């Protein structure tokens, strides 16, 4: 079975472009492993992929309950993949709860693979089914394959001396083997992974490998599946790839940005979902000189980051909405002291504690406006999991160049989602070294660079540059405390200008899809893939629709107004009640139609396609009137 092409001629082979598959089971069923291994197999098969895990909100809800269902969705294709997929075409459900929680998303006619052994009376009851749904006809819309996975698994292991529980825990590899067969994926890499993962318990290496093969062989030999599918390799830029989640990419981008600047990275943080993995990732790489500080709260975390920046390191802190709220006052201090600082905000559903494990884009106005006084900060947003790397690097570099705090917005969807990343050579990455003032002559702590308006960075330990900074208004040059009225206005304006100056070095705004015409959809952050796909579909339908995706929200690109005015209608699509749309109105006085969704879930491309189509049609009708 080492070659995926071993299928007997009795099976039909169907070539498909794109598959969206979801693995779902109890938290304890290993669905995350199954999903990510299948993703790797697909990537190795040359497909473009995107993935999205879906964890339960509770740590470990009682087994078999709806609250305990864990899922992993993979989109793989011979074409460009922009999102983890709207609705799955294939659902693997390891128990009734997983079925119930997910089957509603499965497209009509989709493939539904069940572990029939898990549909016991008690499991059915826990999921709220009175009867086995396969028998009540309620699964009639789908192609159901009910397989006694548990029994087949234990049978494959019957001659091994393993406790029953351990045997059953292998059944996720049965599902993986079966799916690998179905889509002609090689399981070699998975076998290697199993060997490495369980190397301390050879019996588990043996067991899991056997079950994996059993799943494959079941597909190959049983009459159940008449068709196998082939998803041909996508045309992907050649290179070495790895799969990376948004949070991991953020962590690496911060490290790379700091390294390029020649700076020590000091990361102050307080755990919070869905930002904690950035801390986990960074603290695992201390050999890079990264210092991580798990603080007593978010205020201490950002305080430490600011203190580190004062000391000549790049201070970074990350959190999610409630934590950003707590950091508000301290961000003001960084604005006033004009120190570089990166504040990552991995947005989640709000307000308050809200929906901690869900995604949302409702912290934009907080990031741009949520501080006392006139308190401008730069705000950048990442658009895909891998873009988190670039955006984080850019955030670090910008903070240092302009001596300003930068807020980097990502969200739960990006944070947990994974994407193939074409591994760059570190040497090829762009990035400038930071420069410190060392010259004592003529030194004034707030004398500005004429281009960037940045003040000099003079770190303790430098003789002759002893100076004192703080949060009280300061004299324009000397930085001494000043209550003078005109000076205050001057300082308020120069701080605003400094952030505005960032726009000087931004690239021209890019439009994908139509370059001008009927409508432009403006987005920011994690909605990139869904919008891009929707716009592509609409362009394919012949509609002249463009897509502008904003990377910098503060400042906005200078040419943005001009670009948007090339279109008759401006549509802003975001996962909130309308926040970017306010920025466009108040900064560009451009009115726009808002497409919003606040369900804790990302847009699907299908939803967007439909809504954009409806909005533009409506506009056309209005214009005709």
């Amino acid at each position, binding site marked *: 079975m080492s070659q995926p092409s071993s299928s007997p001629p009795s099976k039909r082979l169907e070539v498909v472009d794109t598959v969206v598959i979801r693995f779902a089971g109890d938290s304890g069923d290993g669905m995350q492993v199954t999903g990510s291994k299948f993703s790797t197999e697909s990537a190795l098969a040359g497909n473009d992929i995107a993935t999205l895990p879906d964890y339960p909100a509770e740590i470990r809800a009682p087994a078999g309950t709806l609250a305990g269902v864990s899922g992993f969705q993979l989109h793989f294709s011979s074409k460009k993949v922009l999102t983890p997929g709207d609705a799955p075409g294939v659902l693997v459900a390891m128990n009734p709860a997983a079925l119930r929680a997910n089957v509603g998303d499965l497209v009509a006619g989709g493939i539904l693979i069940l572990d029939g052994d898990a549909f016991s009376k008690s499991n059915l009851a826990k999921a709220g089914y009175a009867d086995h749904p396969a028998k009540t006809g309620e699964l009639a819309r789908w192609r159901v394959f009910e397989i006694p996975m548990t029994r087949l698994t234990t049978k494959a292991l019957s001659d091994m001396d393993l406790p029953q529980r351990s045997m059953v825990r292998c059944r996720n590899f049965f599902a993986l083997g079966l799916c690998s067969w179905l889509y002609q994926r090689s399981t070699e890499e998975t076998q290697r992974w199993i060997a490495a993962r369980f190397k301390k318990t050879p019996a588990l290496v043996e067991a899991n490998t056997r079950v994996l093969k059993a799943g494959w062989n079941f597909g190959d030999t049983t009459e159940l599946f008449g068709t196998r599918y082939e998803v041909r390799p996508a045309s992907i830029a050649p290179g070495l*790839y790895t799969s990376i989640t948004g949070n991991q990419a953020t962590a690496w981008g911060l490290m790379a940005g700091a390294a390029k600047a020649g700076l020590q990275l000091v990361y102050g943080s307080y755990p919070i979902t869905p930002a904690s993995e950035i801390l986990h990732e960074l603290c695992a790489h201390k050999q890079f*000189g990264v*210092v991580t500080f798990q603080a007593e709260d978010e205020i*201490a975390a950002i*305080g430490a980051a600011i203190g580190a920046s004062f000391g000549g390191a790049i201070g970074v802190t990350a959190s999610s909405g409630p934590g950003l709220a707590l950091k508000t006052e301290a961000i003001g201090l960084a604005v006033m002291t004009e120190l570089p600082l990166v504040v990552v905000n991995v947005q989640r559903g709000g307000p308050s504690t809200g929906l901690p494990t869900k995604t949302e884009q409702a912290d934009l106005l907080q990031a741009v406006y949520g501080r006392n006084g006139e308190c401008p900060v730069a705000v950048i947003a990442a658009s895909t999991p891998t873009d988190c790397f670039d955006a984080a690097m850019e955030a670090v570099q910008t903070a240092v160049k302009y001596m300003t705090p930068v807020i980097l917005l990502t969200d739960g969807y990006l944070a947990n989602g994974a994407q193939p990343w074409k591994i760059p050579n570190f040497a090829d990455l762009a990035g400038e070294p930071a420069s410190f003032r060392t010259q004592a002559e003529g030194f004034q702590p707030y004398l500005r660079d004429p281009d960037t308006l940045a003040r000099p960075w003079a770190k303790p*330990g430098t003789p002759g540059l002893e100076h004192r900074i703080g949060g009280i208004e300061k004299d324009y040059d000397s930085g001494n405390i000043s209550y003078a009225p005109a000076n205050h206005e001057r300082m308020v304006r120069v701080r605003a200008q400094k952030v505005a100056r960032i726009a000087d070095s931004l690239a021209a705004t890019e439009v994908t899809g139509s370059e001008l015409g009927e409508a432009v959809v403006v987005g920011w952050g994690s909605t990139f893939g869904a919008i891009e796909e929707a716009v592509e579909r609409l362009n394919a339908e012949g509609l002249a629709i463009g897509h502008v995706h904003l990377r910098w929200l503060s400042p906005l690109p200078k040419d943005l107004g001009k670009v948007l005015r090339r279109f008759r209608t401006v549509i802003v699509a975001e996962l909130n009640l309308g926040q970017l749309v306010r920025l466009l109105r108040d900064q560009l006085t451009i009115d726009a139609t808002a497409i919003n969704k606040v369900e804790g879930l990302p847009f699907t491309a299908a939803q967007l396609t439909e809504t954009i189509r409806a909005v533009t049609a409506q506009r056309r009708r209005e214009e005709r009137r």
Partner: protein
Amino acid sequence: MSLAETPSGARDDGELGDAAKLTRKDFESDQDVRWCPGCGDYAILAQVQKLMPELAVARENTVFVSGIGCSSRFPYYMNTYGFHGIHGRAPALATGLKLARPELSVWIVTGDGDGLSIGGNHLIHLLRRNLDVNVLLFNNEIYGLTKGQYSPTSRQGLVTKSSPLGVVDPPFDVASLALGAGATFIARTVDVESRHMLEVLRRAALHKGTSFVEIVQNCPVFNDGVHEELTDRAIKNDHQLLLEHGKPLLFGEGLRKGIRLRADLSPEVVSLDEVDIGQIALHDETSPVMTQLLARLGRQGLPMPLGVLRCVAGVPRYEQAVRAQVVEARAAKGAGDFDALFRSGETWTVG
């Protein structure tokens, strides 16, 4: 100066270098000092400026960090690096600074409001971690800068703008709180006792770990004379218990009174005229039980201990422990290599 006595920020080689030539004047900044006439803060500033040259730490290697309050204006007046932070957050700023730059000599100046009210949590966590910084808490038992509301150290019954019928909150016992937080160095001194203060500050500077010094300070505008027992020449002898490690707890005119422990470990005052000095409890800077006993003393009508209430050497310094893991990681994995990092997961080749 032996190595064990070198403060952070001094040269590694134990030599004094240029820093040896510094004088007190070198530590005076060009900013006008803006405290009220008669404020106890002036006396503290003078002693700190006096101590600095003695430590022989270069000006550029010294950083004063503060929060907000009259006391927190302190950094502006020191001709060193300085950071006047936001209210209560000086320990957080200092922690980041020290983690980034362990070689610097870092001083936190805070008040009873800044450090114990809004900043209480950062302070106890700082003490717990034992970062090698020095904390000077100016305790005037009032919020000075906001013009006279009671603070967490104000005594019950005190009438202030926010307590017209008297404070009902029991005050913190500052040393007790520091002890409870795990402080390795706890001391107390008084704004007007310059010699005593200098000595205490010197020991604080040399302690490896967080040195916590409560400086009893008079605010003549909003809480005048609240520390009179400790500052009035006529009575202070009966109220100051000057501590010395290993020595009996004696006080009063001619040191003729002492503290003895009852069987239930509660303290009582006895006269050397009546009991033998052998019965007097001995101060032990390393005993948490002794520190606890001393911490509660002043407020029980017994004399107020001044000096070093606790000093435990050899506890790892936080910033060193943190950075040791960087060294450890490098030893185990080699210096960070981004190209290797990027390839550390599963990889595949396209094309």
